């Protein structure tokens, strides 16, 4: 082990020397005992340095700039098109207050656009947009579709269901991003997850005292417990406290806060052994704190600040996970693979 460490150190020193212009042979003379091991790696490094002398061919710089300029011109020429909508939506996400205030309700516009796209035969684009990730051209279409799904839901319970599904999609994306070491993408997805779960909690408030309350409560608790288990597993895999780890921590806190509230409402029952779906909570049972309470405000504030920190950038596409039925509400998309 110590010998390997010494060899790695010698390699590191030689690479620095090569970067300063020293020859491979001169480096090897300093470490004769490691010559056989070091030589192939130093030659490979040197070959890479030599290969770096390749430059663009004549006219290539101008040719590529023409294509970049043409794309920028095209983007700037667009007026009442998706380009303008995209810029508005981006402004909304980044909360850039240096920009002029918006004159329109963009979520209503987004819902209308999504509906129009569907009605006018844009089904293929809508289908393709379902797999788009932040930074990809169709991601704004996907956001518009998701916003429309929420807005067009017939009831608050249906909206809650959609919010949970969207949250689980974000969680699934975070898991996939972690699997491919895309921590930035995972962080972005986790912030979006937190946002959706906060909205779901707000909607759950509206169902207080309704016949659906017990069923909704059981479903949310079950989901939240699954989310916490998944988040813990992902968190265990993080060795460093980077941006994704912070996002993960916020998501765990968010999920745990939601669970605590539902447990309090449910008489401190253990998660996973909740009463049946038909067993409604008695009148006056403490439940989720009202939307305006300090606790709820704190939860919303955390999610909102997480969303504000969210930065959307180009990222590679990820495949979608399969659906898993869930009791209580209609079958939902699964997010939490063991």
């Amino acid at each position, binding site marked *: 082990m110590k010998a390997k460490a010494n060899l*790695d150190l010698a*390699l*590191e020193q030689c690479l620095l020397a090569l*970067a300063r212009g020293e020859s491979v042979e001169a480096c090897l003379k300093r470490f004769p005992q490691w010559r056989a091991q070091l030589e*192939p*790696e130093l*030659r*490979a*490094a040197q*070959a*890479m*340095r*030599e*290969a*770096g*002398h*390749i*430059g*663009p*061919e*004549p006219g*290539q*710089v101008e*040719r*590529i*700039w023409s*294509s*970049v*300029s043409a*794309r*920028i011109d095209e*983007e700037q020429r667009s007026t009442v098109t998706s380009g303008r909508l995209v810029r508005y939506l*981006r402004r909304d996400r*980044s909360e*850039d207050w240096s920009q002029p205030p918006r004159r329109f309700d963009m979520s209503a516009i987004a819902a209308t656009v999504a509906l129009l796209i569907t009605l006018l035969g844009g089904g293929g684009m809508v289908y393709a947009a379902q797999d788009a990730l932040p*930074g990809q051209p169709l991601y704004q279409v996907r956001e518009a579709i998701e916003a429309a799904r929420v807005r067009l839901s017939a009831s608050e319970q249906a909206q809650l269901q959609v919010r949970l599904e969207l949250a689980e999609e974000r969680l699934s994306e975070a898991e996939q991003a972690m699997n491919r*070491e*895309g*921590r*930035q993408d995972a962080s972005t997805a986790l912030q979006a997850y937190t946002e959706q779960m906060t909205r779901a909690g707000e909607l759950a408030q509206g169902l207080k005292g309704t016949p659906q309350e017990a069923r909704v409560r059981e479903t949310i608790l079950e989901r939240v417990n699954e989310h916490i288990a998944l988040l813990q597993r992902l968190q265990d895999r993080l060795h*460093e406290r*980077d941006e994704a780890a912070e996002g993960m921590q916020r998501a765990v806190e968010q999920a745990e806060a939601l669970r605590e509230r539902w447990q309090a409402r449910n008489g401190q029952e253990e998660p996973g052994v909740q009463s049946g779906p038909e067993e409604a909570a008695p009148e006056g049972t403490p439940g989720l704190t009202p939307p305006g309470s300090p606790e709820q405000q704190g939860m919303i504030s955390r999610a909102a600040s997480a969303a504000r920190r969210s*930065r*959307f*950038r*180009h*990222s*590679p*596409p990820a495949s979608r996970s399969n659906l898993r039925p869930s009791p209580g509400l209609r079958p939902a998309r699964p997010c939490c693979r063991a």
Partner: protein
Amino acid sequence: MDDGEMREELSQVQDNLLTARAQTGDREAFGELYRRYLPPVLRFLTFRVASRNDAEDLAGLVFYRAWQALPRYREQEAGFRAWVYRIARNSVIDYYRTSRNHASLDESWAGAIMADSANDPDTHIVAEEVRAGLSRLPEEQQTVLVLRFVEGLSHAEVAEAVGKSEGACRMIQLRALKALARAMGEGR
């Protein structure tokens, strides 16, 4: 601080000024950033994709995406250069995931680069050996090696470009260099 480090720092300050101007929509400032970074970005892409035409198309896309993403760019220690390489790397990953009909190295890249009269033939032979060896490595190892040794980025810049810690990048570099030496040895 030696001359090289001073030049590097001055260059980074200029980048920051140009980026700040470009963020306001100044196309001329963005054009200057483009002129500074097209050659290294194009070289990076040339080592990473199968054909030189694809590298050229991707280079255009990378700078267009950079223009689009400029409003969200925040000045950071590693600077504009690492940021634009990050976009380039993501574009390469996307290229391999979304396209199915890429020409192989043997069909296009080697022939095209050898036919390029603007560069030294010996350099092309070396580049060809490196390219062939690199193509047998995992994507992440290819990126780290090209950024470190072809482009001469610091460990911090490489870490920013690939989204990992410096320590992790050093480990990847050691493993990758061993793998490349082995691959190039087998190819001879």
